[in-house]
């Protein structure tokens, strides 16, 4: 991964709509982070002090269920944003995250980004405008799964 961080981030869907100056400031808080297959990126309840843009690979969000181990809730793949618990107190991960194969990311320092947001509301608003669609997109997907669309129709079904 030899391209400058800014160039790499600018290629990801997350960057679209950011002003170049804002993106530069954001990237100043980031660095490359690569993970091995099966590596745990964060653990449920841990301190949410960073977030990631997935450049390559896939990660699984999971939840510990006593007796059933780590239950995978959802997987996120190339282009996705990983982590938003850093946006609001108590800054704790609600889920755990483990890689599925090798994963390349750009990782951002959450405290530094929060400082940027606090110092410059225009920047903060731009960040929220990038994060809200990520959150609503996941919410919509979750609602869709609640419908259990592929389940067999009710027993009264004909023909």
């Amino acid at each position, binding site marked *: 991964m030899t391209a400058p961080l800014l160039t790499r981030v600018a290629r990801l869907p997350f960057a679209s709509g950011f002003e170049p100056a804002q993106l530069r400031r954001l990237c100043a808080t980031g660095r490359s982070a690569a993970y091995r297959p099966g590596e745990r990126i964060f653990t449920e309840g841990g301190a949410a002090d960073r977030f990631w843009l997935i450049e390559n690979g896939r990660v699984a969000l999971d939840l510990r269920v006593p007796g059933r181990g780590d239950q995978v*809730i959802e*997987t996120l793949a190339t282009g996705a944003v990983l982590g938003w618990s850093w946006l609001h107190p108590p800054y704790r991960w609600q889920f755990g995250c483990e890689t599925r194969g090798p994963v390349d990311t750009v990782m951002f320092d959450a405290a530094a980004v929060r400082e940027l947001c606090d110092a410059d509301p225009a920047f903060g608003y731009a960040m929220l405008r990038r994060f809200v669609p990520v959150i609503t997109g996941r919410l919509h*997907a979750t609602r*869709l*799964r609640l419908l259990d*669309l592929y389940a067999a*129709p009710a027993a009264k079904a004909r023909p």
Partner: protein
Amino acid sequence: MSTSLASRVTGAELPLPYRVIARHADTDDTVTLELAYETAPLPAFAPGQFAMLTAYGIGEVPISLSGLPAPHETARRLTHTLRAVGAVTRALHAAGPGTVIGVRGPFGTTWDVPSAAGHDVVVVAGGIGLAPVRPIVQAVLAERDRYGEVVLLVGARTPADLLYRDDLDRWAAAGVQVGVTVDRPAEGWNGHVGVVPALVASARFRPGRSVGFVCGPEVMMRFTARALTDRGVPASRVRVSLERNMRCGAGWCGHCQLGPLLLCRDGPVVDYARAEPLLDVREL
């Protein structure tokens, strides 16, 4: 009337006997049947079209074509995949080799795969919706040079509900971008978990030079079509396979109306620019 109205025979009139020559259990409740005609073949089916299958004495159901014959096979063989959910489909599900069932067809519009030549092909299927799009992938791979990128995104309830696992492996090996996601992972599942529209975002294709083919539950198709149009595929180049209560297949019984569309005739394959405003109306 001086001319005979009944002079044309189109395959719509009477169920012709076809014999089950192979039965493959895809999942617990889904089978793929290979059918060969007994007395006379029906006209050739195209991907996207459907047949009315009769379990004699029980009833009739619409089932899409789910496979193209391999080049060395009899061209008039029919492949249908069906899920046992009601009396008729349970009877057909139980039909072993040698069983004679009735077939009428072909009915409805086709996926019109050749019109996607020169384009990237993006196929998205949910659940049993993988069956009607399987012939698209087969047709594209049979003339691979005519198409750009080929993407197949598949959503299933659980890994065990996934159809055509051998095909998916074979197609991936042949260079198709295959993405499979499940709602509920099982032990050992190392693939995607989540809804299939979410896979659209990271698939590699040229939105302005792509044709989308979508089949699955109506809600899944709406979200998928939106994901495709969000990426820039024109709605007129997204094709969905719609379903209503198809009872006769031939446009005679009136059950399958969706506003101006008689879906057994004007569908099942409809472009999303036409379908979207109709799907937006409650109880249409």
